């Protein structure tokens, strides 16, 4: 407790440090909320300037940006179906339908509360157990276990938002197939690239989710407007009640654990944490069919997990010098700029830096609660603007957002074509969340399968000889079997 109090005191008595803290907080939220421009853009832009800061200020700044950036995209995901960042995509699955049903305040409120709770719990765990957890998680979870974890996540993906199980599975498979475009992760062999340099790098995730979510939604609402069947959305400002949160306590706890755990594992991070946690919320729900149609538990699961992953992602970085994602890799760069090497020794040689960073992450999550509450009462009013005025703005933001990713017009084409495809698929009862789940889980799944097979002599059954992988795979197979039996019984 004493080192934490010292870190907090150091943070609050240093005016420059405080200015950097709030700069990171607002910057992270702003960059996180705007599609195409995310916290990684901010991290990359400010990287050269960190040379002029102290190492403590620089690392603290990145950790605050990480916390705020992961939360920032939730608001636009809920209000306009535009996930500011990939880690907020599952928030849109249920957050946007809730907004459509006049419960935007409730959805934003839940996102705020759960982001703060997930992030704070993760920061506390990070402070108390960094060296121990890092060592265990990194050694226990090799490629076979991560592959099994992805299978476990995929096993429930088909139940989200589709008219029936088969449409759900076809949606997931479409996502998986789209994700194979680009270079093979093992040997870098071009797949479905048709000689195009653009396709060699694969279809970028951001234009695709902008198209599938934002553009498809504008098309659907546009159709309803032109046919005169659109009903005006009611704007609700109610914060979720204590009773509602109590009802979701297990979802919150499960998502915290899952998010924290996923955050520790290199290459998993906040995005996969949110998707896996969402899947688990569906799996454990008594009414899984409600997900994708406006279930508060979906927002809670996604936002708790993605913020819980932020503190956890710091653990392997600080304890082992192992960055798990792009932003933590930038932090590694900051350490190097200042001539430092993260790892077990950093807790002894730079204890001040570590505890100021921990304190900053803790307070950043508390600030999210305050700022988010204000947002719940203010930003939600944007929904009162008639949709025909919002729609062109949404299309324009999405267009510039898609273009800003790589300054390529082809990304805008991808976005609009994905929008048309998303519109048609949704009209036919297929699941956009299912496609996105397939897309996001495919890359990690294939990479880990290839590495696992190389490790295990290309024997698939050897996966079952590893206890953690075996348990996860058995659970995945059981879930698929159970869903199939249920669907056949219902005659779907």
């Amino acid at each position, binding site marked *: 407790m004493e080192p934490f109090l010292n870190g907090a005191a150091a943070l609050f008595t240093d005016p420059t440090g405080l200015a950097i803290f709030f700069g990171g907080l607002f910057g992270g939220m702003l960059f996180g909320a*705007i599609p195409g*421009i995310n916290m990684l*853009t901010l991290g990359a832009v400010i990287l050269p300037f960190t040379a002029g800061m102290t190492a403590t200020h620089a690392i603290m700044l990145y950790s605050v940006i990480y916390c705020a950036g992961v939360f920032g995209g939730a608001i636009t995901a809920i209000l306009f179906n535009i996930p500011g960042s990939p880690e907020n995509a599952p928030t849109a699955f249920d957050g946007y339908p809730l907004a459509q049903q006049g419960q935007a305040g409730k959805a934003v409120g839940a996102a705020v509360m759960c982001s703060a709770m997930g992030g704070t719990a993760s920061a506390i765990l990070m402070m108390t157990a960094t060296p121990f957890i890092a060592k265990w998680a990194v050694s226990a979870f090799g490629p076979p276990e991560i592959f099994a974890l992805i299978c476990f996540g995929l096993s429930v993906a088909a139940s989200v938002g589709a008219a*029936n199980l*088969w*449409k759900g*599975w*076809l949606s997931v*498979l*479409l996502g*998986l*197939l789209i994700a*194979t475009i680009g270079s*093979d992760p*093992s*040997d870098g*062999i*071009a*797949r*479905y690239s048709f000689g195009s340099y653009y396709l060699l790098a694969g279809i970028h995730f951001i234009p695709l989710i902008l198209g599938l979510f934002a*553009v498809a939604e504008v*098309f659907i609402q*546009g*159709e*309803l*407007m*032109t*046919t*005169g*069947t659109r009903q005006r959305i009611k704007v609700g400002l109610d914060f979720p009640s204590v009773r509602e949160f109590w009802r979701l306590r297990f979802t919150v706890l499960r998502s915290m654990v899952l998010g924290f755990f996923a955050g520790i594992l290199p290459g998993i991070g906040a995005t996969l944490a949110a998707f896996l946690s969402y899947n688990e919320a569906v799996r454990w729900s008594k009414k899984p069919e409600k997900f994708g149609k406006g279930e508060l538990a979906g927002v809670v699961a996604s936002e708790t997990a993605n913020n819980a992953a932020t503190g956890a992602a710091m653990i392997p970085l600080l304890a082992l010098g192992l960055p798990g994602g792009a932003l933590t890799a930038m932090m590694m760069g900051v350490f190097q700029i200042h001539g430092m090497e993260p790892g077990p020794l950093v807790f002894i040689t730079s204890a001040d830096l570590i505890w100021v960073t921990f304190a900053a992450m803790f307070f950043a999550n508390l600030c999210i609660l305050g700022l988010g509450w204000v947002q719940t009462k203010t930003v939600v009013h944007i929904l009162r603007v008639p*949709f*025909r*005025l919002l*729609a*062109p*703005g949404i*299309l*324009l*933001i999405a*267009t*510039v957002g898609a*273009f*800003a990713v790589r*300054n390529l*017009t082809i990304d*805008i*084409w991808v976005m*609009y074509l994905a*929008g*048309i495809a998303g519109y048609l698929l949704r*009209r*036919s*009862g297929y699941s956009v969340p299912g496609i996105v789940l397939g897309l996001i889980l495919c890359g990690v799944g*294939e990479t880990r399968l*290839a590495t696992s*097979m*190389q490790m295990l002599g*290309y024997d698939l059954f050897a996966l079952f000889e590893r206890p953690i992988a075996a348990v996860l795979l058995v659970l995945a197979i059981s879930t698929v079997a159970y869903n199939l039996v249920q669907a056949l019984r219902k*005659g*779907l």
Partner: protein
Amino acid sequence: MAARPAASRILGEFGIWAGLAAIAYALSFEFAGEPGTYLWGAASWPRGIALLMVIGAIVQAAMRWRTEIAPSFANTGLAAEVRTAGVASETANRLAMFANFALPLLYVLLLPRTGFYVTTPLFLAAYLALLGERRTKVLSLAPLVIFVLVDRVFTKLFYVALPTGNWPGFYDVSNWFLVTVR
């Protein structure tokens, strides 16, 4: 009578999925050569997905055939039909829907040629009109406000270099805008 369109829809949907899987499988031969460090090769994963896709398409078609073509079928399918039922002019709706898709695509087509600064306000006004806005003041002011806001945020705050166009005249107007107005 209802069975025939339902049957063609089922077969059409099956054809799309099976066709997609078949194309993916056929194209996988282009990169299925000598395996590198990974002995199963680059084609194994997409082929596995294509195979599962065919199975999924077959099962879906079979299940739908059972429920929708059977004489006692209760579920006639798409909610979209219900949504558009009772609307006066089907052709007008189809035209509006076509424009709903075509307008953004036309915008993307023109964007690199006529530039962001010229094309965007026109696109915004046209899209507003398509969604039913008829007030002249709104049609002229709303695109301007949206355009200025998005332009300021993305170019001034995030330094995104937006397309200036490459057609003679349009490029000059964009440059004039960038130099003079800003």
